[in-house]
């Protein structure tokens, strides 16, 4: 069996089933976005995959191992990053944390030196390698966390909301790094997030869960094509104008401020933001416009509605 992750699990709480019969198989080299609203069971799933939680029922195999029974062996083969908690040593410089993890995972000094050098360069960590972790900014720390999870060259990297709280630049840097890592074929990615661009940038496959069940599981493009995502264009006009009806692909128009600001809801099935902007500009003089990023919750809600 070369399936990297294969799982079928059912977990029964006293009253709540945090994860209720989720089945999925992730093959080596994939990049899977595991998304859903808060309380959908994402973290619970991850805890079961990493051997922290015992499934109430069902079967889990990660890298061919039973996560709970062979937790230590599994720990050598997977890396885990929790966006909201640290696995670094608070009082020690980043460099020392890495060195400790090297010993804990039994990585040879040669391998360690090579990997460390690579990640330090890719993630531009050299300037703060000797700073105690508690003094690092969140963005710097996250880069450290990701490196810490990769030092033992895991085949699977699980990331639980890795970009939470990061600024745009830090997010983009991290995404770029993870995308390159996955593209190199060395590491399978499983990622939970509330950030849609994370998924768009990193994942070819999307698994949407809600209330502990898989809602949708499929390639990102196909999902987009099949369901199309409704998005919104907000335009502010130079002078008040009547509602901009009749533009191609626009499903509804809301007018604010006597026609100075208009919200155009369009479907990505029928048009693109760029095409729509072009046709708006042809009709009226636009002072400002914005295309808000749809939140993951909105996408999920839209999927629900169908």
């Amino acid at each position, binding site marked *: 069996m070369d399936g990297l992750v294969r799982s079928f699990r059912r977990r029964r709480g006293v009253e709540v089933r945090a994860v209720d019969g989720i089945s999925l198989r992730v093959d080596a080299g994939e990049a899977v976005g595991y998304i859903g609203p808060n309380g959908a069971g994402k973290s619970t799933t991850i805890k079961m995959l990493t051997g922290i939680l015992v499934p109430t029922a069902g079967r889990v195999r990660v890298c061919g191992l039973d996560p709970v029974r062979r937790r230590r062996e599994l720990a050598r083969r997977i890396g885990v990053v929790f966006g909201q908690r640290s696995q670094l040593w608070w009082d*020690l410089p980043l460099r020392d944390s890495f060195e*400790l993890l090297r010993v*804990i995972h*039994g990585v040879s000094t040669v391998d360690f030196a090579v990997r460390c050098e690579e990640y330090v360069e890719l993630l531009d960590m050299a300037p703060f390698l000797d700073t105690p972790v508690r003094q690092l900014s969140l963005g710097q720390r996250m880069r450290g966390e990701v490196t810490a999870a990769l030092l033992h060259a895991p085949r699977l990297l699980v990331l639980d909301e890795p970009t939470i709280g990061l600024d745009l630049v830090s997010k983009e840097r991290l995404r770029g790094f993870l995308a390159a890592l996955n593209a190199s074929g060395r590491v399978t990615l499983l990622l939970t997030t509330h950030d849609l661009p994370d998924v768009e940038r990193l994942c070819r496959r999307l698994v949407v869960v809600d209330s502990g069940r898989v809602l949708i599981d499929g390639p990102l493009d196909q999902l987009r094509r099949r369901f199309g995502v409704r998005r919104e264009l907000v335009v502010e006009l130079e002078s008040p104008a009547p509602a901009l009806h009749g533009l191609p692909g626009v499903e509804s128009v809301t007018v604010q401020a006597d026609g100075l600001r208009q919200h155009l809801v369009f479907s990505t099935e029928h048009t693109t933001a760029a095409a729509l902007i072009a046709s708006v500009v042809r009709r009226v003089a636009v002072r400002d416009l914005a295309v808000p990023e749809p939140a993951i919750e909105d996408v999920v809600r839209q999927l629900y509605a169908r």
Partner: protein
Amino acid sequence: MAEGALGDRRRPGWRHRRTNWRDRRTTWRQRRASWAGRATAYRRLVGAAARSQLAYPLSFALQCGGQAVGQATDLVAILVLFGHVRAIGGFDMREVLVIYGIAGVSFGLADMIVGQLDSLPGYIRMGRLDALLLRPLGALGQLCASEITLRRLGRSSTALVVLAYALSTEDIRWTLARASLVVLAPLAGTVILCSIWVAACSVSFWVIEGRELASTVTYGSSMFTAYPLGIFSSWLRRLMGFAVPGAFVAYFPTLALLGKPDPLGLPRWLQWSSPPVAALSVLVAGVVWRSALRHYRGTGS
């Protein structure tokens, strides 16, 4: 449907167990390498903890001194007591000081190694325990190694000085057995107290604020073990001396060292049984800890 699912579940489980066994036929050399690797890892964790505690040497020295003084206040209590009476529980002052010394060294060392388990509820709440479970080492070992509190050495050193003094003034017929017991007793005592501590703190997995309850047993033991068994009421003796094996930390080894018949008339073999009791308590504590951890991983609180 339900039966089918059950059948499906059972078969892979069985197959898995066999694979598991086959994998475990590792050579002796591999196993030794992995043991050595783990020992190094724990040593480095302790080293890291030591480095951050010794980062400010003066502050560390003061803390050590504080611990030593703290231990000495118990000593003062004993001296004051003997200003009024000649013997307690059938023991004169120097004999009590031997008990106090062994108990103090043991408690100081145990407190150094496992004392920070008191902060386990915090670990659980902050999810730091999860981070430990993601590493290829045991959770308890990592907790103890990275939370070792070196300043407790101050406590042990006071007790050690008192023990050395008391033994030197006492008229002891030194045999090989007694000489080894002098070394073994504080170590066995440490092991017993560590086990008590681990078992008591496991309560935190069920009750997040189980700290008070655990402290009753852990810090209670520190007081209980430092005095002759005879001064306590019989139910307390049974509870803290034998159910929680506090009597084996210092009381029985002291009797053996001094060659003194037990004032309570308990059998002589008990006096030499601290090391096996220590081994047994490790087993019990291990089982309690494991089931506690399993409970945690079952509920995911």
